[in-house]
């Protein structure tokens, strides 16, 4: 919303420091609506004067140019070359003489244009930095004299404030609304128009009325509670007087002609949208407010033909739609320079109806903005009278003595009760009724005096009654009034005090600590946390039911993420594209799918079950360590990934990591792990799979030739356990004894089963078992391999003897020979 500082000053009678636009802007920001921009309008126009065009002649060397003889009011006649398509003989235009400077800093000199000397130039709005209309030279009203300062007559310089209105404060979309916030509602000084006044004789009807030679019929009272009209005959449509043009420009609006400008002025002054029709083009002088017909067409003022539907509301004459109700007028009934008689509409359209009409037409206008948010239901009559008076003042003509009013006059709003104790409860202040009254009265929220005989009495039993004015459609409850009190006091004026508080009864969500645990571990292992958009393309669907995003922003984002790794692989590709070979990313986020490793939240979307759960995804590729000149580059391999997976599974989740055999693929596929290649691992907790890890299948990543193998891990955050304190155990003070054992075994015997067998037979003297070597060679025999195991023995109460250790070793090797086809290798 653009606001003219001069206009506010005229209405509110600003005094003190508010006379400064900057201070006013700050005040408005702190009490009403944020001021986003403060800009000067019409500065640097000192050298621009009104010049009268005496003659317009062709330019001998250019068809598109003309030569104007102009009078600057100093008795001299100057030639000016002009490129505008239309220059009216006898019209007045802004002129800058040679030696002058335009607001943009451009200096004007006498110079020849296509061989003809031009003494300065006639200026457009753009050249004067007054507006965006560069279609032609800015024509001034005929009523001003040549030679006067253009800035003076336009009322410049002025300052334009751009307000960012809160959606509930549509009342601030006009100058009176803003003036109330900084002045006093009862002391608003409306501009006096130099023209006749209009006190009509009203012709009323609930849904239909005739008067001033026109018939008004409201067919849809639910979409239009009130429709008023006036007729002015014999207007002279032309440029507005400069004060009006200047006002509109300062408020960011474009001057069109005096009649249209008058309706716009009233809109910007008091928030009531009005529309002027060319009366002659309204067939049978009939106006009805009705639903559009499906497929009905209407060309609006902006020249667009709009195809309508029945949910839109139109203004129609006897034959056709002539305007979109509350949105925009039609081109056929537009007021032009040929117009002589006008009908001025002033109505209260329903917010929902206007929203629908605007939606159908695909339009949003100054009028629809206000109607959609709710305008003052009591303001139409005053706005119409004022608009008629302004038309008479700026365009002449004669107003019909009859005015037409259709619809039922709204009943006055009820007063709202306001308890002082409630105000203080919410705000924490110790206000009294006088404080509340002082805060609210200036913006028109008047205290209803309970006893007319004692004007000082403001409340009864601590309750005030507040009369809410029609323009405050947002105030319907006591709490709305409490907000007004706080706002009027100013949020920054509240004292700061420490308050005691009671801590929350709501327990922390355990997921938070789980996520923090995961982050700590992964960051310490050199991984970076990524955050991706949680969407994915259909190709990652697999055979699962996944959640489609309706009207997705792109194909790649047409489904909600159903697993983490595929989305992280796109982040990996981003890094590959930047030439980054070493990538270690993890992400904790939500996945959505019909099947989950575990479930946290379930919904039914269109009959399909959707389970939402939090997962951790990891992708790893590239060097195991940063490169160093002392050693060869070693890439992350499956054993690194198995180690990380084991750490997560065993230490964080208290679960077990199992190698997945090639003949066992069924379960994992249903979990959305189509990215998982061999070798792969599965984390199992209480018989359920809670995570997977392994190499990423090469078709899942678009990897450059220089990339290393890619690995992925994904597991349920839910499976992570809270970290519990562990119990201390005494460590032995006696030395350990180390022994190695090399065994050859058939290759089918898995290391894990050997290790298990060793653990099963051992006594508590065996402290640890470690595989230190795997060897396959012809001398071992076909289908055999050697596994080298290192054992560490220790007793808690003595130093072990050779005999102790030897008998342990014997037990271990016997067990292996017994359980497997094992042969002990002698070293």
């Amino acid at each position, binding site marked *: 919303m653009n606001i003219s500082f001069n206009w506010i000053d005229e209405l509110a009678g600003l005094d003190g420091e508010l006379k400064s636009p900057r201070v006013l802007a700050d005040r408005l920001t702190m009490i009403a609506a944020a001021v986003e921009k403060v800009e000067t309008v019409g500065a640097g126009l000192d050298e621009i004067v009104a010049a009268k065009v005496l003659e317009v002649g062709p330019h001998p060397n250019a068809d598109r140019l003309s030569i104007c003889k102009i009078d600057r009011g100093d008795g001299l006649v100057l030639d000016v070359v002009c490129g505008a398509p239309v220059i009216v003989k006898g019209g007045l235009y802004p002129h800058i003489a040679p030696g002058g400077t335009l607001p943009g800093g451009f200096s004007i000199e006498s110079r020849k244009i296509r061989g003809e000397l031009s003494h300065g130039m006639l200026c457009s709005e753009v050249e004067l930095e007054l507006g965006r209309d560069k279609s032609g030279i800015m024509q001034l009203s005929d009523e001003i004299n040549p030679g006067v300062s253009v800035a003076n007559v336009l009322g410049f310089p002025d300052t334009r404030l751009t307000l960012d209105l809160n959606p509930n404060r549509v009342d601030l979309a006009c100058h009176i609304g803003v003036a109330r916030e900084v002045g006093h509602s009862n002391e608003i000084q409306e501009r006096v128009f130099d023209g006749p006044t209009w006190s009509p004789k009203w012709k009323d009807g609930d849904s239909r009325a005739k008067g001033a030679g026109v018939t008004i019929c409201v067919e849809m009272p639910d979409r239009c509670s009130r429709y008023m009209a006036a007729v002015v005959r014999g207007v002279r449509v032309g440029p507005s007087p400069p004060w009006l043009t200047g006002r509109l420009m300062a408020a960011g609006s474009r001057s069109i002609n005096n009649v249209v400008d008058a309706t716009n002025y009233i809109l910007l002054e008091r928030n009531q949208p009005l529309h002027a029709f060319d009366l002659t083009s309204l067939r049978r002088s009939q106006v009805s407010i009705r639903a559009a017909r499906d497929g009905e067409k209407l060309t609006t003022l902006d020249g667009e033909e709009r195809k309508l539907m029945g949910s839109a509301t139109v203004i129609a004459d006897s034959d056709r739609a002539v305007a979109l109700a509350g949105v925009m007028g039609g081109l056929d009934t537009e007021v032009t320079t040929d117009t002589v008689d006008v009908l001025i509409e002033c109505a209260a359209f329903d917010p929902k109806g206007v929203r629908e009409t605007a939606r159908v037409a695909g339009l949003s206008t100054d009028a629809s903005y206000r109607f959609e948010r709710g305008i003052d239901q009591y303001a139409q009559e005053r706005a119409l009278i004022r608009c008629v008076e302004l038309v008479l003042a700026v365009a002449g003509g004669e107003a019909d003595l009859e005015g037409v009013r259709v619809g039922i006059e709204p009943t006055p709003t009820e007063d709202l009760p306001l308890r002082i104790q409630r105000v203080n409860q919410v705000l924490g202040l110790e206000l009294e009724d006088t404080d509340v009254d002082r805060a609210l009265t200036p913006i028109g929220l008047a205290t209803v005096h309970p006893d007319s005989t004692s004007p000082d009495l403001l409340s009864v039993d601590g309750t005030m009654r507040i009369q809410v004015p029609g323009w405050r459609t947002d105030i319907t409850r006591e709490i709305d009034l409490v907000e007004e009190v706080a706002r009027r006091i100013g949020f920054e004026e509240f004292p700061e005090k420490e308050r005691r*508080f009671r801590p929350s009864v709501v327990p922390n969500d355990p997921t938070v600590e789980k996520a923090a645990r995961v982050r700590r571990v992964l960051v310490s292992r050199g991984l970076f946390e990524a955050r991706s958009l949680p969407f994915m393309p259909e190709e990652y669907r697999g055979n699962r039911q996944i959640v489609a995003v309706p009207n997705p922003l792109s194909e790649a984002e047409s489904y909600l993420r159903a697993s983490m790794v595929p989305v992280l692989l796109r982040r990996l590709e981003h890094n590959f594209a930047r030439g980054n070979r070493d990538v270690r990313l993890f992400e904790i986020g939500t996945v959505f799918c019909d099947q989950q490793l575990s479930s946290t939240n379930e919904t039914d979307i269109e009959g399909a079950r959707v389970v939402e759960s939090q997962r951790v995804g990891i992708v790893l590729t590239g060097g195991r360590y940063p490169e160093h000149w002392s050693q060869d580059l070693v890439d992350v391999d499956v054993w690194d990934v198995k180690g990380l997976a084991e750490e997560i599974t065993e230490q964080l989740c208290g679960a077990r990591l199992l190698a997945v055999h090639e003949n066992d693929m069924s379960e994992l596929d249903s979990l959305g792990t189509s990215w998982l290649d061999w070798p792969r691992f599965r984390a199992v907790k209480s018989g359920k799979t809670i995570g997977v890890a392994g190499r990423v299948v090469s078709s899942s990543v678009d990897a450059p030739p220089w990339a290393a193998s890619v690995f992925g891990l994904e597991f349920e955050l839910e499976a992570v356990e809270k970290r519990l304190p562990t119990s201390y155990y005494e460590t032995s003070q006696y030395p350990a004894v180390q022994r190695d054992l090399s065994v050859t075994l058939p290759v089918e015997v898995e290391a894990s089963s050997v290790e298990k067998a060793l653990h099963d037979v051992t006594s508590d003297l065996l402290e640890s078992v470690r595989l230190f070597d795997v060897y396959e060679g012809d001398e071992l025999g076909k289908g055999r391999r050697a596994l080298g195991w290192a054992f560490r023995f220790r007793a808690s109460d003595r130093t072990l003897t050779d005999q102790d250790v030897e008998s342990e070793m014997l037990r271990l090797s016997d067990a292996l020979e017994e359980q497997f086809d094992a042969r002990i290798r002698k070293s």
Partner: protein
Amino acid sequence: MTLSGASLLDQLSAVEESGFDAIQKARNPDMLEVARVHYLGRNGQLADAMALIADVPSNARREVGQRANAVKKGLTAALEQQAKSFTGNASEGVTVRDSTLPARTRWVGGVHPVTRVIDEICDIFADLGFSRVQGPEIESLWYNFSALNIPLDHPAADTMDTFYLDDEFVLRTHTSPMQARVMENHQPPVRVMVPGLAYRRDSFDPSHAPAFEQIEGLAVDEGVDFIEFRSAIRHFVHQFFGKSTESRFRPSFYPFTEPSAEVDVSCTVCGGSGCSTCKRTGWVTIMGSGMVDPAVFEAVGYDPERYTGYAFGMGPARIAMVRHGIPDMRLLYEGDMAFLEQFS
């Protein structure tokens, strides 16, 4: 004073013996270098012994001198021999001489800058008695809109901005639905922080993302008033942005709070003098907030006459952008290692 040749010869033998021992025990170039300095260095044991030769009677000097040279030669040879045993690791032989060579490093990881902002914010409010909870991202119309006093025909519920999954469920457009969920399940005092993702149909551009982090805060109890609300937020601003950061509350509108306020902080980039981060205003908006609207209390079954409270919402991504001077929101979601490494 004079020194007998024999005692100096004994001393040299001792140096020789312990020197050989140290050299042989050296298991890496560093240990070897320590041994070299100790025995063969300019102020080493051998040099000390040789300095004493001058004090030996002249007739014995020759023998002692020869012995000293032999010890030096022997130790030097042993040193070279031992150094050669390390050359399987050629490079380590070099480190001994040139310690300006680059060090060996390890991968370091890091949490995302937005996570850090979320954690810091939640920690500050934890001091004010707030616990931390999370909620579902697929949310019903009731929790996402109606319970928060947002009519379904309100612009905020418009299909333009909301991802509707069907007639009943949406991807939550804010973290505020958890206000209602928490209050339905607990009686006051309720103080919670709710970080999480929210979804809006915004195109992905420098200042918008279709899914973005939000943090909701809610405090409800008897006697919670606007003064407490403002003091709590100011405490947060000072803790998070620093004592010298100014803040201001200005009127705003949210259907689920009243009075509603937006909170601005003085721009931490320019200090309030105006820059592109603050759009030349000197202020950056960090949260929407207000006193909980009684209609929300009614929706969750709290007595609005008895309980009052405040609620606020922040965008940690935007705060991270302001804090680190990140010009484009999309950088946060690219997973670019070079970006993430800056915050490790």
